[in-house]
């Protein structure tokens, strides 16, 4: 089946791949923000994940170790943020921005020796006969493992936030840290762990870029993906499945517009180029249009530092 010279099955398969880095980074940031911390350093943590993952994969020859390295790299950078904001009470916005700048610079320094090197290839997950199902096989069963991990991560975060005690405590800390503290929860410790998780997920997203999507190391490889992830968390009003939807919309339209151009569709390129941003924002804003609920969606303590002395 072809539509306007484009095979929809191949397109959907590409969009799932294109959205992975954004999903991973955004779902991590969602947890961080649900805990009441605004970490604007996603871009920096992603790119640290990209270079650390790349370096680890090249050193060990194993893509799996690459992803572990990427997660560790992202988490390591987020430790700096956590120490500054949780223990030294630094301003979260300024610290997050500084983290991005620091991450971009540090990754470039670490990456000096890795330009032009090819990482070990990541094999597609072999799902046997499932991959051969027409259409559905192309869309769902011919991906690398990280595509499935990204969807699973959304499901797990959603389930944990919604159905578990851990999720409830995390949300409590994000809504009202004084109350959570009064109930005996360790606000700082919980936030620290949430920030680490966010860093690790952003690192995974970055590693996906450098190991699978682009497969190479180039300075500034994330080129703004972290900022898109941040925006999607807000426009998705802090709901995990909407993050997935937003990322697929963004990734999907970004891929679609390139395909339309390649297929020679007669739509002005300017409109095609702006469409991913425009449509993603429009759809998510309309979904969150109910004002009373939208206001309730943002964690009440978002961006506020907590100190136990009060």
């Amino acid at each position, binding site marked *: 089946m072809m539509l306007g010279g484009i095979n929809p099955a191949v*397109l959907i398969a590409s969009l799932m791949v294109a959205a992975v880095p954004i999903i991973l980074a955004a779902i991590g940031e969602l947890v961080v923000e649900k805990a009441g911390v605004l970490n604007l350093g996603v871009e920096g943590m992603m790119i640290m994940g990209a270079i650390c993952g790349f370096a680890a994969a090249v050193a060990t020859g194993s893509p799996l170790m690459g992803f572990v390295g990427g997660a560790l790299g992202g988490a390591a950078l987020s430790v700096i943020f956590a120490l500054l904001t949780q223990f030294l009470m630094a301003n979260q916005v300024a610290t997050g921005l500084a983290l991005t700048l620091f991450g971009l610079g540090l990754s470039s320094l670490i990456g000096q020796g890795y330009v032009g090197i090819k990482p070990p290839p990541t094999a597609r997950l072999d799902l046997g006969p499932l991959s051969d199902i027409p259409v559905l096989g192309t869309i769902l069963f011919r991906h690398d493992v990280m595509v499935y991990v990204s969807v699973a991560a959304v499901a797990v975060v959603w389930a944990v936030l919604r159905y578990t005690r851990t999720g409830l405590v995390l949300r409590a800390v994000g809504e009202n840290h004084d109350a959570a503290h009064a109930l005996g929860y360790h606000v700082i410790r919980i936030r620290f762990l949430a920030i680490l998780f966010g860093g690790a997920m952003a690192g995974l997203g970055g590693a996906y870029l450098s190991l699978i999507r682009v*497969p*190479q190391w180039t300075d500034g490889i994330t080129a703004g993906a972290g900022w898109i992830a941040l925006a999607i968390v807000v426009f998705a009003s802090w709901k995990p499945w909407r993050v997935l939807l937003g990322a697929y919309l963004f990734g999907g339209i*970004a891929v679609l517009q390139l395909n339309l151009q390649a297929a020679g569709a007669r739509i002005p390129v300017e409109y095609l180029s702006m469409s991913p941003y425009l449509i993603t924002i429009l759809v998510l804003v309309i979904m969150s249009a109910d004002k009373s609920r939208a206001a309730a969606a943002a964690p009440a303590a978002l961006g506020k530092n907590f100190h136990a002395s009060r």
Partner: protein
Amino acid sequence: MNRRTLLASAAIGLGLSMTGAAFAQDKLKVGFIYVGPIGDGGWTFQHNEGRLALEAEYGDRIETVYQESVPEGADAERVLTQMALGGADIIFTTSFGYMDATNAVAAKFPNVKFEHATGFKREHPNVATYNARFYEGRAVMGTIGGRMTKSNKIGYIGSFPIPEVIQGINASYIHAKKVNPDVTMSVVWAYTWFDPAKEADAAKALIEQGVDVILAHTDSTAPLAEAAKTPGVIGFGQASDMISYAPSPRVSSIIDNWAPYYIERVGMLLDGTWESTDAWEGIGGGEVKIGEITDAVPAEVKAEAEALAASIADGSYHPFTGPLNKQDGSAWLAEGETADDATLAGMNFYVEGITGDIPK
């Protein structure tokens, strides 16, 4: 940090950089503004190679400074002003989008020389422009592409619809068509110079459309990395040799060689003979080099491509030689007529046979 401390620290920072400039006044300070990171492996990498060649050539007589990843537009003006205030004597701005910013800042600093790459505006006596005839290289790539394609579909990843890119699209199409009349060309505009993920996606979209020869006019090596995933798809190094992707998908490359120009111009400034000029050299002048054609290309195609490059270099052949029509079918160049530089520098039309519109 509140706003006042922020301002205060900014002022201190500025003060420090000014004192730094005062100490270094006996040296000529050469500044570079880059559109991407120097590790992009392509465009900016090559400009930086030129900067390093300058340092090697003049040693202690000069000092170089550079700023990476400067966005085109208003930000460029701020960075340029800062660099001029910081004591730079000559500043090379290395992307088309810095054109207006370069001229605007040049008006404010008449004693600082500005050199703008790939642009055409020289509004002040202290502004010079320089460019390379990349389209000559594109003609060679087009020839190889036209011979090598099996699907008869060639893809071109454009950055922005500016004359330099359109020259490249036209030159590669004309020469692919010349050796393979069945060739069609799909152009995808990425609207970025540097975004590896997007460049990879663009290459992927082209490959999904059946394209098996990819020409990229963006700065990173990502399109080659994407081409490497699909057997049978070839591409070319762009701006830099990108030899790590040889022998395939990278079968050849267009290498920008800025070092001779930078050395010449800074030398002129040291001698006091610098003046505003418009330099535009190609294969013949050594500014554009054709990277080694690998064994993935049949010997006769390689010989044909090398012969074409040689004829361009010695001036016996011009890549835009008539008869050529514009896309709408109107006559552009008559039989044997060659394009003049002014038309090329402002090229805003496709030649006949390319489908699609150039974004305005």
